């Protein structure tokens, strides 16, 4: 993590279609997030936030622009990394709207899967998983079947999964949408803790009013353009 910037994008644009019926989902988006920082990406539906997340997550190719991850240029009017899958595996963590845990693996293996995919031996991967589960206070459910876990427990495990390969950046897509305010704030507190502890940049896409006040910095996105704002930065107890 050089330059004190975990992820940096400049002039990112994404056009769908050709000619007269083309849609510009992203128009010259600029964004920068530092390691350990939790920023919010806020906007209504249709504003392009999903498209931006997909570009940041290296699942969609932008049309134009520049993306840097931990100082390394990954996109400059064309992908500069040969294997995007490896990029996603090792350097980007994902937290989805729903936990999306693999139902036929237990809690530990859901988290340990990522280090295993990266080639780590099973024992090491499981040790790392247990470490994360402990940090997230769900270690007592390490052997549990996913179907037996509560929503909150599942979400914490999915957060552990996102952290499993120590990625420099985590993309969180509406992580608090189904939760009540107490739980939502608890999630945000955990994310803040993890971000600081592992020095991971976390970009949280949300339109949940309950948690917006917790961000120190916000990017508002509207019609494909982003505007940086200062957030309230309220402490979570």
């Amino acid at each position, binding site marked *: 993590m050089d330059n004190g910037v975990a992820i940096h994008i400049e002039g990112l644009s994404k056009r769908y279609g050709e000619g007269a019926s083309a849609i510009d989902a992203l128009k010259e988006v600029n964004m920068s997030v530092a390691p350990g920082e939790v920023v919010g990406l806020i906007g209504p539906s249709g504003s392009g936030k999903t498209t931006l997340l997909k570009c940041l997550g290296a699942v969609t190719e932008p049309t134009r622009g520049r993306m840097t991850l931990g100082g390394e240029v990954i996109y400059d009017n064309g992908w500069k990394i040969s294997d995007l899958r490896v990029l996603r595996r090792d350097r980007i963590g994902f937290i989805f709207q729903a936990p999306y845990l693999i139902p036929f693996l237990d809690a530990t293996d859901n988290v340990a899967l990522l280090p295993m995919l990266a080639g780590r031996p099973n024992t090491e991967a499981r040790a790392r998983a247990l470490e994360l589960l402990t940090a997230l206070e769900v270690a007592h459910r390490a*052997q*549990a079947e996913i179907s037996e876990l509560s929503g909150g427990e599942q979400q914490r495990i999915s957060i552990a999964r996102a952290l499993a390969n120590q990625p420099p950046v985590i993309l969180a897509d509406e992580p608090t949408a189904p939760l009540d305010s107490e739980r939502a704030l608890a999630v945000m507190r955990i994310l803040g803790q993890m971000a600081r502890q592992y020095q991971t940049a976390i970009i949280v896409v949300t339109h949940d009013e309950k948690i917006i006040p917790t961000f120190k910095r916000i990017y508002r996105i509207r019609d494909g353009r982003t505007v940086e704002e200062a957030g309230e930065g309220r402490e979570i107890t």
Partner: protein
Amino acid sequence: MTISFMKIHLALTRKVWFAVFGVALLLAFGWVATTSGPLAPIKVIVTQVVKGEVAPALFGIGTVEAQRAYLIGPLVAGRVKRVLVDVGDTVKAGQLLAEMDPVDLDKRVASTAAAVARGRSAVAAAEAQVSDAKSHREFASVEAVRALELGRSGANSQSEVDGKVQLRQSADAQLAAAEAGLAAARRDLSRLEADLGGAEQQREILRLSAPVDGVVTARDAEPGSTVVAGQAVLQLMDPASVWVTVRLDQGRSAGLRVGLSADITLRSDSRKPFAGKVARVEPISDSVTEERVAKVAFEHLPPDASVGEMADVTLRLPTVGDALIVPNASVRHRGVQVGVWVRAEGKLRFAPVKTGAEGLDGTTQILEGLRVGEEVIVYSERDLKDDSRIKVVTSLGGNEK
């Protein structure tokens, strides 16, 4: 880090169940592979060679026949006039059974009898003539003698004497002629009497009578039908002479001889066999059916036996004692060789054997090739080879329905 005991238990249970199922499946697969199909060993039943008795017997089927049966019929062609008995009647020797139509034979007898009567009168007439000629000659003889005397004394002329002598000679001749005529009439009478006798005998022949006591078995011609010489009008049999003609396969008739005791089972009453004995072994066998023929007599005649009825006859041969015996199911062929499969030291061996007597119950005597106590294969599910794997059981598919 607390780990719930319940969670581990459930996870283990699932794995355990799966493992149990997997192992059960593999075991079932293994069991199926080794006990069925071509890989499985052949199931066999064994027994030991022992010493015992063999009760050999000969078996054949026979027909009940009458030893003495008679065809009653005319000696010449004719028409049947009447039949006096019917099938099943018991008759005595000499009894009149049937009569042929005499046609004109009666009239011929009458005419011949009349001719005989006439012949008798002709003889009587010839006899009268002879006595007349005799008396005539007597007289002529006396006259002739007197004439000769008178001639010598000169009273008669020579011509008178010659005349009387000549009369005597002619009276002699007449007597001879009359005697000859009598002889002829007598011979004629004999001839006519013989004719009459012949005609009467012919008449007798048309009467058919029973030659012996017996039972009528067939009535082949009704009154009015024409039969030829030799054709039977009635058939008779002597019921005391009923016996069984038995046919035995040539290949299985060793030991057949007169005097063997027999069990005869009639087709009409199979529960109670009759005792009998071989009365005769036919010197000529049937080469077409390859059978030998024997006649078996009943010890006590069955009351209701019918000629032509089928019978099963078992002839008992002398028992063979102290023989090595095996069940005949264990005797098999390998190619042309006859032998028995022996199990020795866990291996199979085909032992060629020579068999001796065989009982009707399947006990077979072994003359060569086996020893007492050897274990032989009696029954097997499949054909055996030298390298077959076998498994000894106590019962095979034959005992299940």
